[in-house]
């Protein structure tokens, strides 16, 4: 294993100083001369035909500069799954029909926000209401309202994978159980509401600043929907106040800002309100999960039959990926000798679900882990032992899907058990207290090119200078997770520089190398990190050549960049400072600057991901016997994320995931009535506050992932998955109530408890 200088240390994160003093610019902070303000008119109906739109009065309102409906813009459908155009089911502004309460119908741009808002109320839309469906059952029923004509049965995606003879395996199993779980929608609930600012220059080229995780995807889809060329659209990601998956698409306001900026010749800003975010924003897929698993009498898994319906809401959004992934996650953690998965993505007349941290994993893992806990009890095997017997290990193959590289799962189980004294506490229950366990495995980015990018999955450009500094350019998007820290940190390690020697430019499609698919699926550290290393290696080759020539070294000398120097490992006295080496190499190129490109595209890595991470989590809870209120007292986590590049950031991700998953398990949910979201404020969409948080103790299990940059892989996203099943198991331990439908609300606990 390598010894690191910068990697593994808590270098001060890039941008935190700007954020601490209030100087970091987020999209809504941008103010351009002459800037206009836009607002969107949204459908008040869950499903309706648009008969007529009259914008006359709105246009006549003083201060209004423009009003658009689908009549005024190119009618081009878009969606992230470009590889399969059938899945692209959204228009920018509704054509003929609206499909959920909040569906965008028109946009107004005016001299200020108040005027734009007032103009919205002057647009008259005549609707003919249609029957609507708000749940999976209604949508898949014979004669259900058809939400998209192209999919008369309302199922937009089927995903099937299988291996072995599942029926035979069940028949030969000693113990088989079948369960159905229901999991609900939650919001990403990033603190920064979505915003975009667009500007158009006199040649008609557009610059868009937007709160996004995917500047490249936005650039491509914006160009397509505007009918422009990609290079005529520049997308810049300013600081982003969190995304959690919900900012990974081209959004309607991006288009409207750009279209109106071009049409009016003035910069245009759209900023969503929190109410809009909650009422219409992307959310985690609710799912109905049927799962059947078989075991031998000594607890060895024989087969799994997993059938999942995803409640996708009115449009596909990132639903196709979630449909694929919830199946993969159901098959990742344990050795399933045979399996069958069928995922179906169902349209309903609700705000579209999409990617929210975990991307199908929290749902699927809740089912997997709860069933493991139930099976353990019925088989009379300790839940840890049952997992250890079936756990995947390094080198395992998930048949038909993938091969597992580094794997510290078994060690995670042992470590978390030890730290939490799980076995002892489970055997000696205390009244009102419970302890439970959940585990996860997660991806380090996907390998499936659904966006059909024509570029590498990630890219980096490194420029080095004679003054001993470097400039890293990458389209990777820091949305708070810290890629603007970790990527230069990797470069610093590779080039033997200090963090302060490196300038970072990121996430500007006109300035940073093509391309990067964005920040989602925990892909950035591994993919962009590898791209950085690739570029750094090419730079180093040039520096090593220069140093070799300068000292007339034998070509067999091994050289390295460390502590600001470039030298022979065997003869450290034969070396130059980094800046001298750069100056020399530049001379060799007759002044051409030293610039290198690096890239990463996963090839030959199966169908899922280049690398898997793992972890196990134990929850301790206290349940109030009178009120049914669950208080999570402590979370213990052991996880395997490969090399820990920046310990503070890894901890931060882990701790943040506890907050989000605690909410998923206990308090967060969208309450809907006839397709209308009632939880439209932070007062009623209840995410945990500082007062609600449990204690946390965590352990990083040491592994080295050869596919990852300097041994690193995913950290922090997969951790949203084990928390809910661990808490549910602890609640069961305390009360006898077994949760089949999240969230675990106190009234369910009181109704379901068999002891306490």
């Amino acid at each position, binding site marked *: 294993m390598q010894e690191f200088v910068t990697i593994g240390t808590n270098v001060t994160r890039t941008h935190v100083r700007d954020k601490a003093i209030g100087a970091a610019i987020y999209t809504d902070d941008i103010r351009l001369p002459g800037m206009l303000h836009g607002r969107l008119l949204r459908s008040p109906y869950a499903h309706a035909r648009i008969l007529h739109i009259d914008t006359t009065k709105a246009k006549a309102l003083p201060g209004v500069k423009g009003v658009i409906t689908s009549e005024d813009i190119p009618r081009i459908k878009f969606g992230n799954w470009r590889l399969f155009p059938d899945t692209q089911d959204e228009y920018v502004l509704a054509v003929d029909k609206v499909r959920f309460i909040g569906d965008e119908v028109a946009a107004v741009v005016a001299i200020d926000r*108040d005027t734009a*808002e007032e103009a919205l109320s002057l647009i008259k839309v005549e609707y003919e209401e249609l029957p609507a469906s708000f749940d999976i059952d209604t949508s898949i029923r014979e004669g259900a309202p058809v939400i998209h004509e192209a999919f008369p049965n309302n199922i937009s995606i089927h995903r099937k994978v299988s291996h072995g003879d599942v029926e035979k395996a069940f028949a030969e199993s000693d113990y088989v159980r079948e369960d159905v779980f229901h999991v609900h929608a939650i919001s990403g609930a990033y603190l920064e509401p979505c915003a975009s600012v667009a500007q158009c220059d006199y040649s008609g080229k557009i610059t868009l600043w937007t709160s996004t995780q995917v500047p490249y995807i936005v650039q491509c889809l914006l160009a397509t929907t505007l009918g422009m060329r990609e290079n005529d659209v520049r997308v810049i990601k300013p600081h982003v106040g969190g995304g959690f998956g919900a900012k990974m698409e081209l959004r309607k306001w991006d288009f409207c800002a750009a279209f109106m900026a071009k049409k009016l010749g003035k910069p245009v800003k759209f900023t969503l309100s929190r109410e809009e975010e909650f009422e219409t924003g992307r959310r985690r897929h609710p799912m109905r999960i049927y799962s059947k698993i078989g075991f031998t009498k000594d607890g060895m898994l024989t087969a799994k039959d997993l059938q999942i319906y995803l409640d996708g809401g009115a449009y596909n959004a990132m639903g196709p990926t979630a449909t694929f992934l919830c199946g993969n996650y159901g098959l990742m953690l344990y050795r399933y000798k045979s399996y069958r998965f069928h995922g179906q993505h169902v349209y309903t007349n609700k705000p579209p679900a999409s990617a929210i941290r975990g991307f199908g994993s929290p749902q699927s893992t809740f089912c997997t882990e709860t069933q493991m806990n139930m099976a353990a009890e019925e088989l009379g095997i300790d839940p840890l032992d049952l997992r250890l017997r079936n756990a995947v290990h390094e080198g395992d193959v998930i048949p038909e899907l993938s091969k597992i590289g580094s794997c510290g799962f078994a060690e995670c189980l042992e470590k978390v058990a030890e730290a939490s004294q799980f076995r002892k506490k489970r055997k000696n229950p205390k009244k009102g207290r419970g302890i439970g366990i959940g585990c996860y495995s997660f991806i380090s980015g996907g390998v499936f090119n659904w966006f059909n990018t024509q570029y590498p999955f990630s890219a980096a450009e490194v420029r080095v200078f004679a003054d001993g500094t470097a400039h890293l350019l990458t389209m990777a998007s820091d949305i708070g997770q810290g890629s603007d820290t970790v990527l230069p940190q990797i470069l610093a390690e590779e080039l033997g520089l200090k963090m302060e020697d490196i300038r970072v430019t990121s996430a500007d499609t006109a300035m940073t190398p093509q391309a990067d698919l964005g920040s989602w699926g925990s892909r950035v550290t591994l993919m962009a990190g590898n791209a950085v290393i690739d570029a750094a290696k090419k730079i180093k080759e040039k520096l090593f050549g220069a140093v070799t020539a300068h000292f007339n070294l034998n070509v067999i000398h091994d050289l390295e960049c460390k502590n600001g120097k470039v030298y022979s490992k065997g003869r450290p006295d034969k070396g130059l400072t980094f800046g001298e080496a750069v100056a020399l190499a530049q001379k060799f190129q007759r002044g051409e600057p030293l610039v290198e490109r690096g890239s990463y595209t996963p090839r030959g890595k199966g169908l899922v991901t280049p690398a898997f991470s793992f972890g196990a989590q134990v929850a301790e809870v206290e349940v109030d016997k009178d009120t049914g209120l669950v208080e999570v007292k402590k979370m213990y986590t052991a996880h395997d994320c490969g090399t820990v590049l920046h310990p503070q950031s890894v901890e931060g991700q882990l701790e943040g995931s506890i907050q989000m998953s605690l909410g998923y398990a206990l308090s967060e949910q969208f*309450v809907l009535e006839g397709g209308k979201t009632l*939880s439209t404020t932070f007062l*009623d969409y209840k995410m945990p506050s500082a*007062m*609600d948080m449990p204690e946390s103790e965590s352990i990083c299990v040491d592994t080295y992932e050869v596919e990852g940059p300097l041994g690193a892989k995913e950290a922090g996203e997969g951790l949203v998955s084990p928390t809910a099943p661990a808490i549910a198991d602890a609640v069961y331990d305390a009360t006898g109530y077994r949760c089949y439908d999240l969230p675990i609300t106190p*009234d369910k606990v009181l109704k379901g408890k068999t002891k306490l």
Partner: protein
Amino acid sequence: MSLTKFDYYAPERVEDACRLLMEKGEGAMVMAGGTDLLIKIQRGLLKTQTLIDLQKIESIHDITFDKDKGLSIGAMARLNDVANHPVIKEKFPAVSEAALATANVQIRNMGTVVGNLCNAAPSADNAPVLMAMGAVVNLVRSNGERQIPLEAFFQGPGLTVIQKGEIVTSVFVPTPPAGSGASYQHISARGKVDISAVCVGVMLTMKGKTCQTARIVLGAVAPVPMRALRAEKVIEGNPISKEVLEKAGIEASKECKPISDLRAAAEYRKILVGVLTARAVNEAAKRASKKPN
């Protein structure tokens, strides 16, 4: 999000505020902390043409205590001022606790106890204890003033007896008799900082181990904070035993009339009423026993 348009006045005397209220007619409203009012205006739930800010009226900022009479909380006394007031913490701990249970720090720095009452949410944190303690609301108009028991103040969600041109200038809490104790209990099903799904205020007077008088007020389970009269009867004349607590809880649970909303189901609210009533009575009795008569 922007607010609908209104004119703004910040008079320095109560009589000027009353006069403005009358002059400006419909659409004129008074504002204390504004934390509820501005949200209502923003959502279009209130149509306001004139906003009369009370903050410059110095006399109504005060919190005063006269040990023979009681505690007076001025209309502009902020929730945090009430929660942290040394005399209130010592002599009216439940009043302080209710103020502290209201919303978060920032809102408590802005909002007022009187504003919380005037907003008349069924779940208003400050109403149950104050009602249980026999608080009286002081209403002033241009040509006079009147005192209304808090119990008669509420008329429905968002509705009170305040008449056109009237301003609540303070709420008065009589000094509790010797041998008395009060408690405030509240709960949310969704986290520690939340609108209460149920809240309960109780004041008891005890003689030895026996309860002489009980006032139990339930919040968030009816259109207005309500007395649990039957539960009170269960307790009065009895020692505070486990059985009595349980019975009082059952009675309170039976007599409340909660609705289901996105914060909690009616059925669950009834359960909470039982639990919190017992807890509040128990704590009030304990506090009473520390101040024997």
